């Protein structure tokens, strides 16, 4: 461990510059490159779809990366929070539809419905996260192997409980009426939900950044990422901060679950695990512990997925791994990762 860090310190400055710029060029290139093969209108549609997917991935990845950075916990149960959020949202949407609220056609009313569902998902994710942190994860701090195993077991149990309550099959989701329409700008069709999703994602990103950069809590969390012991010495209850961050991360994942299931239109029990893989790739690309990094990484993965799915459909799912490999070759710690 010590040896590797000293190696990184003594690397030549030109090499560092190359690595820095390589990452930047790659992250811009992924936007521009597809224009060679795709005509601009399709490109715009794909870009919007990619951005939507990117911000949705970010919702899950942000919690994962902050939990990792602050608590040094690789939380493999994160996908389960995602799935729980989605299923809670599904049930709630069913209730709303029985009341007839989903058929109200104005965008404002649909947004209101969505806000209600998201609030519920936040609550479900937060409570579950708090429970898991208090009951299980708290006892395993400092032991990576145990943590990974425990969170994996917890994910298994939570997914099975989903199957008990909601059944193991695919279920179609009821979507608020206005989200099915779309706006048209210059021949480009934008589904309203995509616009809303991008808005929510960007708002969440800005919100996280504001909290982390501008508030005292954010300063404590950032200090905790740097050095836990000093924060404790300063008299802050790091345990409570851990719980809070974990619950927030879980809540964000649950929100991501609701948004993603509305985006896809259906839900299934293994959706959490699938999303966890995406989120892990995003976190690796972005650099573990960096929120901005995972935002960039999520957009990159979302965009690349959509472009490649259009050009070479069979490669779509593999392209993320390819991006991850390239990024790791250039910057072994990810885009924004620090040694």
């Amino acid at each position: 461990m010590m040896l590797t860090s000293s190696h990184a310190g003594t690397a030549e400055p030109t090499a560092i510059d190359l690595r820095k710029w390589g990452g930047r060029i790659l992250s811009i290139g992924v936007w521009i490159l597809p224009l060679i093969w795709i005509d601009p209108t399709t490109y715009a549609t794909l870009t919007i779809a990619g951005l939507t997917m990117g911000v949705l991935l970010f919702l899950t990845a942000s919690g994962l990366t902050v939990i990792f950075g602050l608590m040094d916990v690789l939380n493999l149960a994160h996908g389960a929070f995602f799935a729980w959020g989605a299923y809670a949202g599904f049930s709630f949407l069913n209730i709303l539809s029985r009341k007839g609220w989903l058929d109200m056609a104005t965008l404002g009313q649909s947004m209101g419905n969505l806000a209600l569902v998201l609030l519920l998902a936040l609550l479900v994710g937060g409570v579950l996260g708090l429970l898991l942190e208090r009951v299980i994860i708290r006892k395993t701090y400092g032991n990576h192997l145990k943590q990974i195993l425990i969170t994996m077991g917890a994910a298994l149990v939570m997914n099975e409980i989903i199957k008990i309550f909601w059944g193991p099959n695919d279920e179609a989701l009821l979507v608020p009426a206005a989200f099915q329409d779309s706006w048209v700008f210059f021949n480009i069709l934008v589904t309203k939900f995509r616009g809303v999703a991008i808005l929510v994602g960007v708002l969440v990103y800005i919100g996280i950044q504001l909290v982390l950069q501008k508030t005292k809590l954010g300063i404590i969390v950032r200090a905790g990422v740097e050095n836990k012991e000093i924060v404790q010495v300063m008299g802050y209850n790091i345990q409570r901060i851990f719980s809070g961050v974990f619950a927030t991360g879980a809540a964000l994942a649950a929100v991501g679950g609701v948004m993603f299931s509305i985006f896809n239109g259906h839900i299934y029990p293994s959706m959490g695990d699938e999303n966890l893989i995406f989120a892990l790739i995003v976190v690796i690309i972005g650099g573990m512990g960096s929120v901005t990094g995972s935002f960039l990484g999520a957009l990159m993965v979302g965009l690349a997925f959509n472009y490649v799915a259009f050009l070479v459909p069979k490669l779509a799912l593999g392209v993320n791994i390819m991006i991850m490999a390239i990024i790791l070759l250039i910057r072994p710690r990810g885009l924004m990762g620090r040694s």
Partner: protein
Amino acid sequence: MTNLNPVQTERLQERRNRYNRPTFIIQLVFIAVLLTIPFFFSSFRLIDVVVKVMIFTVFVASYDLLLGYGGLLSLGHSMFFGIGAYSLALVIYHAKTPAWTHFLLATGISLALSISMALVIAFFSLRVKALFFAMMTLALAEFADILAIQWYDLTKAEDGISFGLPGIFNVSWSAKSIMGAEINGRLMTYYFILVVSVILFIIMLRFIRSPVGRVLQAVRDNEPRATALGYKTFHYQIFAIVFGSSIASLAGILYAMWLRYVNPGSVLSTPIMLDVLLMVIIGGLGTLYGSIIGASFIKIAEAWLPDLQKVAQELLPNVVFAQRLAERWILYFGILFILVVFFFPRGFVGTARDIIKSRKTVAKPVEVPHD
């Protein structure tokens, strides 16, 4: 004799006594039981479970090499299993008529593939951090699963590939019956798998006692110290990954031989990885013999737990919730898994060894005053 150091003398003694120890006799009896099972029990279900236990013992032991002895948490070990299984299936399937050379070809292909994959993973992920290794392997294993599902022309995706085996392993092959038991292709496959898995297990036992294996354990216990002693820890870890992955792919070949059918769900997907994790944790990390206990427990439970569902249906025909509870037996594995990780982190064999050891140390102080 004079220039032997204490460690060497101890090892020499160990070598001399290796055929007199009780464990050796237990091993012999165990193998003898496995050899005679097909003659006493004709139930296919039982034989099927026994074979799966043997194959998974090898597979889990190879995982134990990485996790228990190397301290490397891979979440993509099922990928190597799948590589092995798919290489045999694909070679035979695409060659149309099965032949003996296909075994060699499949072994070669799977070894080459798994060694190169293991090297790639090691170089990418070990450079940074141990946790990275877990994430990378998980992502890559998922990718392999996706690849097998998407690449229909090669793998037939979810439909899977069924294939025949050459010569005496073929289902249609049969000879005269000996001692009441029919000698057929299935039985020959059983013995082949038995022999190969015993050999592989012995190789692994040998490996952990070899100088390389001992250094590997030193790296696990205290990496800075091993580095300070002049060992290139990175090389040893790479070797462990490559070795464990190769054995896993050989186990995959055996599994494909037994099933004569592969699809992503049966050889490549995450549930298999979960199974292996359960087995290795329940059996005991870093014990190697624990893999036998773990694999037996899970495979036997998997074979007979689904019956629980029928029982639930008969007893409570109208309660859907109870039926679902019985149906989801993986849930109980998950809970058991968490409990074992919490309360018996050393697993069955590890805990048993601890108890034996503590008895011995308790017994000693009693003897000392008499002397």
